[in-house]
């Protein structure tokens, strides 16, 4: 047993991070960059999907990571995909990345990032208007005023969790949650780790009462709990990537959702009034975490699945 990242996996993670950070903090592409933009010019989905970024990700092999080499892919496994999506979660990569990833090799141009693919997921469809291909039945879809400015959402009729429009991207087949669930969990994990780092950084820098707020135990303990949530979720997500056991996947999604949402909230708290602003990136992590918690597999489904196996 050696449940740690291999050197290759570390290198892959570093490579993806470098690519995403370079690209997402480039001028003119301020989305999710981690930089506070000028007031009033906050990033928004109304800017549309950054197709240049999409193609660049395709060129880098992001979408074809798990596609066998003989089909033009990188030929890696789910653990590597999870590491890549963790990085996507860190930087709030906008776009239907999970659906496009799962469509690589199935939908022409998806692997290369030429074709943007989205999928019906329960009653939600992210990025419907911008996508070239929609998997599942999106008839009757109506736009929502999405809480997440970086994720346009449509709603389709039906009941949540009833399995309507089940696609690989979403709830998986009858055998349990598909890899898409775990990729969402990986994004949640990346977000949870990122908001923990951001809170710690802010707690070191921001001074009140003549000392860094990170010297106050109440703040320290918030940060400590954030790390605990992220690290417990990390163990669950990585293990599920290795075993692909449907119950481990369900548990990983549950804990990663929780870590992402609660860490974002604690991060906001640590930022004080700044955390409540549009410019600080914290709200984007919280809103995206809320969205992802509704995608793939929701808490109720995961908990019921886990309970029925007891």
């Amino acid at each position, binding site marked *: *047993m*050696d*449940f*740690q*990242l*291999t050197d290759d*996996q570390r290198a892959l993670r570093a490579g993806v991070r470098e690519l995403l950070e370079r690209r997402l903090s480039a001028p003119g592409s301020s989305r999710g960059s981690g930089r506070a933009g000028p007031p009033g010019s906050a990033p928004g989905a109304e800017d549309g999907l950054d197709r240049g970024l999409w193609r660049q990700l395709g060129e880098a092999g992001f979408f074809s990571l798990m596609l066998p080499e003989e089909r033009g892919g990188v030929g890696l496994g789910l*653990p590597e995909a999870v590491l890549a999506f963790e990085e996507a979660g860190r930087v709030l990569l906008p776009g239907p990345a999970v659906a496009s990833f799962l469509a690589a090799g199935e939908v022409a141009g998806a692997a290369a990032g030429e074709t943007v693919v989205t999928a019906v997921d329960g009653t939600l469809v992210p990025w419907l208007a911008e996508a070239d291909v929609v998997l599942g039945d999106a008839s009757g879809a109506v736009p929502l005023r999405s809480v997440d400015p970086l994720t346009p959402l449509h709603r389709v009729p039906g009941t949540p969790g009833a399995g309507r429009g089940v696609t690989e991207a979403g709830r998986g087949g009858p055998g349990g949650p598909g890899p898409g669930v775990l990729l969402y969990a990986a994004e949640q994990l990346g977000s949870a780790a990122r908001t*923990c780092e951001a809170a*710690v950084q802010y*707690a*070191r820098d921001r001074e009140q009462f003549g*000392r*860094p707020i*990170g*010297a*106050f*135990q109440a*703040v*320290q*303990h918030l*940060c*400590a*709990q954030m*790390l*605990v949530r992220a*690290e*417990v*979720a*990390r*163990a*669950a997500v*990585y*293990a599920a*990537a*290795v*075993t692909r056991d449907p*119950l*481990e996947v*369900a*548990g*990983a999604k*549950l*804990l990663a959702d929780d870590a992402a949402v609660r860490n974002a909230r604690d991060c906001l708290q640590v930022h004080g009034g700044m955390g409540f602003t549009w410019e600080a990136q914290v709200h984007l992590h919280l809103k995206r975490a809320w969205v992802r918690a509704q995608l793939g597999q929701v*808490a*109720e489904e*995961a*908990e*019921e*699945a*886990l*309970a*029925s*196996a*007891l």
Partner: protein
Amino acid sequence: MDLTYTEEEEAFRAGLREWLAAALPKLPAKPSPQDWPGRRAYDTAWQRTLYDAGYGHVHWDASPTQRLIFLEETEKAGAPYVGANFVGLLHAGPTIASEGTPEQRARWLPPVLRGDEVWCQGFSEPDAGSDLASLRTRAWRDGDHYVVSGSKIWTSHAEVADWCELLVRTTPVSEAVPKHRGITWLAMPMDAPGITVRPLRTLAGSTEFAEVFLDEVRVPAVNRVGDENDGWRVTMVTLSYERGTAFVGEVVACRRVLGEIAREARGNGLWDDPALRRRLGRLAAEFSALWRLTQWNVSEAQRSGGVPGVGGSVFKLRYSHARQELYEAAAQVLGAGALDLGHEWSLDRLSSLSYTIAAGTSQIQRSIVAERILGLPKGR
């Protein structure tokens, strides 16, 4: 990220399983919880059995992964716990092994391995708990002895121990000597004159630990491990000796209990309550993740050649909370039955209240995580 065990590890597991299947039926009946001499005899006999079978050294010599397998399999098989051997095997022993002289190792280690001698830990004092370094039990030199006076508290197994790993103050705190500096580590024979052990009753009703009063107890100076005034460092060397395996058996046990709680709920109709089902489902995710985190930490220790990380604090914070939550769920399932101490879970629920206190409270663990892992400025 490899979760499969090597052939060698699997062979170790298979051999252990086979041995356990043969050894456990021969165990004598469990003594009653209040029969301390009986419990000591039971626990030490088990250690002797392990020793004779070649498993006595597992905690000291085996790789972190083998220890994980050992703890997992013994728990699954329902083997006895380390019990009264805890301090000897997991704290005092490793301390002596790493800091003691050859003579000290030869004197103290073999009897621990054979289950002949039991140790207790005399660290905490009435006025020194979380702030352990502020301890005040005094020791001064008198010829080839130290003379010790003061009192210790919460000393588990003090009633049945042969030895106490004792922290004493040999140099008073002053401007020049900070509190961590004047502390010395001594092995105190528990039958020395001047020692009074007063058992303390826990909220679970048992006498797990005791107050230990020390009135001019003479301890031979050769029983000092490490240098005089270097006891804090000597102690810290092994404080996280467990290398990620501290709660392996407990996590296995929690998963078993969760299954039993679900069975109980299915039987008594509460299973129809979706809120309860979801609560139990979430706990299943929790303990599954804690198991994976254990494997993660053990693999990390294995890679780093056994250097313990601070990851243990992250684990303990979540685990102690989850285990308390497990018994709250059990109480929900038992309903009024949770008020009956005749039910095992009711007693376990009471015991679980100590998990966020013993071995570093959750507040102290959070401060450790914040300062030593996250690098936040020293708190106040």
